[in-house]
Every structure is written in structure tokens, then in C-alpha cells.
């Protein structure tokens, strides 16, 4: 079955087709949820919510643009929605920090470790870092999505980078302690 047919059937609330769609995209979308969420359980919750939103809004998808991109946007928005509802954005310190180039030299760092340190970032740093670095949103878009200023978005990104750099550097010094 082509993706188009699958989407068509999903629009008709065909449970079987929905299952197929889930099989196709759940792994990819779950990775997004993992990056954007604080932990695994939260990521699962987000994935669930994201798919429910996807199935309820799939009739709004007009075959314009990549379907996967559409799915990703919904997933990201679902996660953001959760944090908007939790009002976690306020707690972040707004100190403006210079955008410094940070260099690291790691290849043997495990992805699980990286995911772990992302998840440990303060909520907004994590979101901004993910949006900007992983999903290539502009600061303008991020500012709109998180309802913050562009400057705040930039400074949050810088803070996130610094924290991550520090953590990775520490990891490099004592790799044994962090092996997963």
C-alpha cells in the first residue's frame, strides 16, 4: 500500500491503516519525543498524544509538502504544547551569554549518553537546542513557537551549548564513569 493510500484510509478512520501508519513512523517520531522530553516516560506520553493529534488532524493534511515533515511538526508542537501548559518556560534564567564556538572531539560518545544529557537540560534550553540544532528551525520560528523573543532564543541556545559542552568534556575526561 502506498503512503497516499494509507493516508486516505487514515482519513476514513480505518483502524488498520492507522496501525500501519504508526508502524511506519513511530520510531522516528519517538526519537523526536525523546530529544524534546525530560525522560523516557514523558516521551512515551508525548508520542501517544502526538499520534492522537495526527489521527484527528490527518484530514487537514492536503498532500502539500512532505508527510513526514508534517508528522514531525505535529509531534514537536505536541511536546511544546505540553510545556506551554506546564508553564515551564518562566523558570529559565535569561542571562545573555555570548555565542561562543565550542569545540569538542568526540566520536566514541554513545547516543544514549547524548540523549541523556539533552534530557537533563533545563526545559527551554533543551527545546531551543533541539529546535535550532536538530530540527533546523530559525530563531524567529523558535521565538514564535515558544512565545519568547528572538534574543532569548539565541541566549538559550548558547546556554544549552555551554552546558552540553561542559558535560561532554567532563565525560571525555572520565569516560568510564559514564559508559552506558
Amino acid at each position, binding site marked *: 500500500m502506498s503512503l497516499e493510500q494509507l493516508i486516505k484510509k487514515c482519513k476514513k*478512520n480505518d*483502524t488498520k491503516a*492507522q*496501525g500501519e501508519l*504508526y508502524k511506519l513512523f*513511530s*520510531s*522516528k517520531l*519517538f*526519537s523526536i519525543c*525523546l*530529544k524534546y522530553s525530560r525522560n523516557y516516560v514523558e516521551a*512515551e506520553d508525548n*508520542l*501517544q498524544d502526538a*499520534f*492522537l493529534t495526527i*489521527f*484527528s488532524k490527518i484530514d487537514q493534511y492536503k498532500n502539500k509538502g512532505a508527510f513526514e515533515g508534517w508528522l514531525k511538526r505535529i509531534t514537536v508542537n505536541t511536546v511544546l504544547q505540553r510545556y506551554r501548559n506546564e508553564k515551564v518556560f518562566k523558570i529559565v534564567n535569561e542571562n545573555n551569554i555570548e555565542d561562543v*564556538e*565550542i*569545540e*569538542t*572531539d*568526540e*566520536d566514541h*560518545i554513545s*547516543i544514549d549518553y*547524548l*540523549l541523556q544529557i*539533552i534530557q537533563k537540560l533545563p526545559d527551554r534550553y533543551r527545546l531551543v*537546542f533541539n529546535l535550532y*540544532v*536538530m530540527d533546523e528551525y530559525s530563531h524567529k520560528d523558535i521565538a514564535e513557537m515558544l512565545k519568547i523573543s528572538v534574543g532569548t532564543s539565541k541566549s538559550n541556545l548558547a546556554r544549552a*551549548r555551554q552546558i*552540553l*559542552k561542559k558535560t*561532554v568534556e567532563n565525560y571525555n575526561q572520565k569516560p568510564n564513569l559514564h559508559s552506558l
Partner: protein
Amino acid sequence: MGDKKHIDRLFQEHFKDFEVKPDAAIWSNIEAKLLNKKKKRRLIPIWWRYAGVAAILLLALSIGTIFINTNKSTTTNSKIVDTKVIEIKNDTIPNTKKHNSISRTVIKHKHGVSVDTLTNIKKSSQRIYKTNRAASKISNNRNSRATIKNKNSISSKTNTLAVSQKSTILKSKIEKIDNSAIPKTSIVNNLNLDKKQFIKSDTLITVQNNKFVSNTQSKTLNKSNQIKEKQNRVNLLNKIDSTSMEVAITEHKSLLTQEDTKVSTNKWSITPNIAPVYFNSLGKGSSIDAQFNNNTTTGEVNMSYGINASYALSKKLKVRSGINRVNLSYNTNNVIAFSIINASVNSATLNRLSSTASDNIGEIKAITAENGISIMSASSFNSSDSALLSSSNTSINQSFGFIEIPLELQYAVLTRRVGVNIIGGFSSLFLSNYNAFSSINGQQTRLQETDNINNTSYSANVGIGIHYKISKMINFNLEPIFKYQINTFRNTSGEFQPFFVGVYSGFGIRF
């Protein structure tokens, strides 16, 4: 130490093809929520869809039955298959192997009895096939004999064949037993309990095995097989303990009620009718004038015709309405019509007339009609005056035309081939025309319009309906109904209590 990298690159490269398979429980959660949503969302539309389907079915059925009914004559020569009834007494069940309690009753319907349409035959054959299949399953389970199962299925197949070929018909009652109720208890599959026997004594339970099995078996299976079959059945019945019998009995009760309701599935009926109607008054009196109170009256027989529709509220109770055209007419006899010969006599005569009349009734005025003719009651007319006038004895004829809209309840006292019903209700009568005239010297002379007739009046109706069932769909109805009129006239004199009696006859078409 490797190459130096921008922190962004590090993450981008690592997460480039990052995919994690979520736990299977996630999907089941999502699925459950989706289904829940779907249910809620679809609840109303599905209801609408079903209602629509039901409406279409109803329409199609009602049209279909009318057409099918016309084919009926072609199937009237079909035979009714011999039915074998196996009676098993409760107390003899444990040792029924000897067929002691198995008796054959062959019911032959020669003609006309519950003649049903081909579709019914097909349906019933399908049902029988189903029940046979179920029966074969049971016997298989119970006796774990594969051979028997095969034989059963063979026989059931031939049964259906025989059914369709010979266009054999079951007794209508048996046909009506709803198959859907059967799967509830598998035992009941094999049991068709005879109604009458059941009522007569609870201990006697008549079990009718599948009719066609027994008949066609003898043709298709050899005798040993047949005996085996019977034994299997008996074995099966042996295994039915008393509790399951009770279940069967209760099941059967529900089947019976279903049966009854199914018989009267034709809830609607339309009856075009025609009736001779006789109009008269119960008490002495006149609708025209007090002077005619003691005059003899004769009612006339006129016609009423129209169409009625009835709807069965329950098995016995029907509500019906319709529209009828009613013509009534009525004569007031012994009146004198006179014409004044010349103008000079006129006033004197009238004076004298009024003076003589005043002794008896009071002020009496002659009723004027066309062409200078006056009409009076003969009793108040002084015969000595007749010399002055050219007079003649005649009568006043009043005729009414009504549009009648009845609303009646019909309760069935007897529901056999000839049904007896009690009918009660009321009618609204709308006056459509009124005429009063006298025939004088062979000429009809109109009386001046009296305006004491109400445009709208009512009647209380009581009657008996005799309905003869010609076929499943057609009834011949004969309904003598008495209708007591209320509020027909204003200012009537004496005890003028008009009524009319009609014997309504017509063919009712049920659907």
C-alpha cells in the same frame, strides 16, 4: 583524541538516523483511545443510518408484498409436507430408545391452508438448513461420531433441495418461529414444541423434529441410517435433563409470543368501503319546525363510501381513521303544501290558519317554499281552509351530505378466520350540502334554506366488525355501525335525536 568538532555537529551527526522503537503498549493505548473516540463519534450517524435502512426496508417490503401477493395463485397447488411429530413424555425420556413414545402424526393440508409465497419457502428452507446444521453439530459433539455428522449434513442438503423443488410449505406458525432466538440454547434447535399440546398439559412436551429431515430421509437414506438418526435424536433428548427442559419450555414460551406477534406483522391496513346508511331520529321531534314534531317520519337509505386506514397497536387493538362521504336523507310526512290562489285571500287565510293553530301549538307560520308555495304540518292545518287553496298532502324531504372523518378503536374479540371486533369511536362530520324539498304535483319544490344545521358536527360510533380472512393480506369486512349524531342541528324542537346506521363493507388490504 579525534577531530575537533562544533558541538552542534556532534549532536547532529549522532542524531541523524536516530530512531527508537516505542513500547508496544503505546500503540495499544492509542488504539483504545481511537476506538473510544470513534464509537462516540459514530453513535449518532450509525443510528441515522440504521433508521434510514429500516425506513427503506419498510417501504420496499410494503411494496414488495403487494406484488408478491399477486403471484400467490401460482403457488396454491403446492403440497404441504408430511410432518412427523415425536411426542416425548417427560417421565419416559430416560427410556425412549424403543420409540414407544414416538408417534407419527401426519398433517396434510390439502389446499389453501397457510399458503405462502415462494420467498417464505426459501426462507424457511434456509432456516431448516441452519437448524439442521446446528443439529448435526450437536449430535457430533454429543456422540462424537463423524459419520453421523456427515449423514446429517447430507440429509439437510437434500432437504433444502427437496424444499425448493417441491415448493413444500411448513405450517405457517412453525415458519414464524424466529431463528435468531434459537442459538441461545442449542437444545432448542432440535425442538419445535407444539403449542396446543403444551397448553393442554405441561408434562406433555411435543417435540417436532425438523420436518423435512424425517420425510426426505426415507428417500435418501437407507433404513438403518434412519434408525441411527432416530436413536441419535433420542440419545440427544435423553441427555436433556429436566433443567434444560425447563429452559426449553421458557424458550418456547418466548418463541410462542414471538410467533404470535409475527403473525400480525401486517400492522397497517387499508379498507375502501361502501355502506348503505339509514338516517332517522330516535325521539319525536323535528329539525325543521316545532309544528312537525308529531309528524311521522321515514328515514331513507342512502350511500356512504370512503376509505379507512387502520394501524394495529397490539395484537387485538387497532386504531383506525379515514374519510367517508355520507349522504343522508329523511322525510317528514303528512305535511300540506298549498299555494295561495290570489293575493286577497292570502292574509286572511294566514290569519285564520294562525288562529286555529294557536289553540294547539301556538304561533305557527307556514314555511315558505319556491313559487309561492307554503308548507304546513297537516295536523295544524284546518281542513275547512283547504277550499280556499289548492293544497296537496305531501312530505318534506331533507337530504344532507357530510364528509365524515372517523377515529375509532377496534378491539378483536375473536381472531380466527372469521374475526369479530368491537368498534367504538367518534366521527367529525362536515356538512357539504343540504337540501330540503317537497314534491308537489310531481314537482320538486325547494324549501327555503333553514340555517339551523351546523357546519361541523360529531357522532358517537358503536359497531361490530366481522372480518373474514380471505388471504394473509386480504380481509372482507362487514361492519354494522350505529352513529349517534351530536350537535348536528341548532334549535331543534322536540326530542330530535338524529342517528344513522350503516353497514360498511369492503376489502381490507393489510401490509
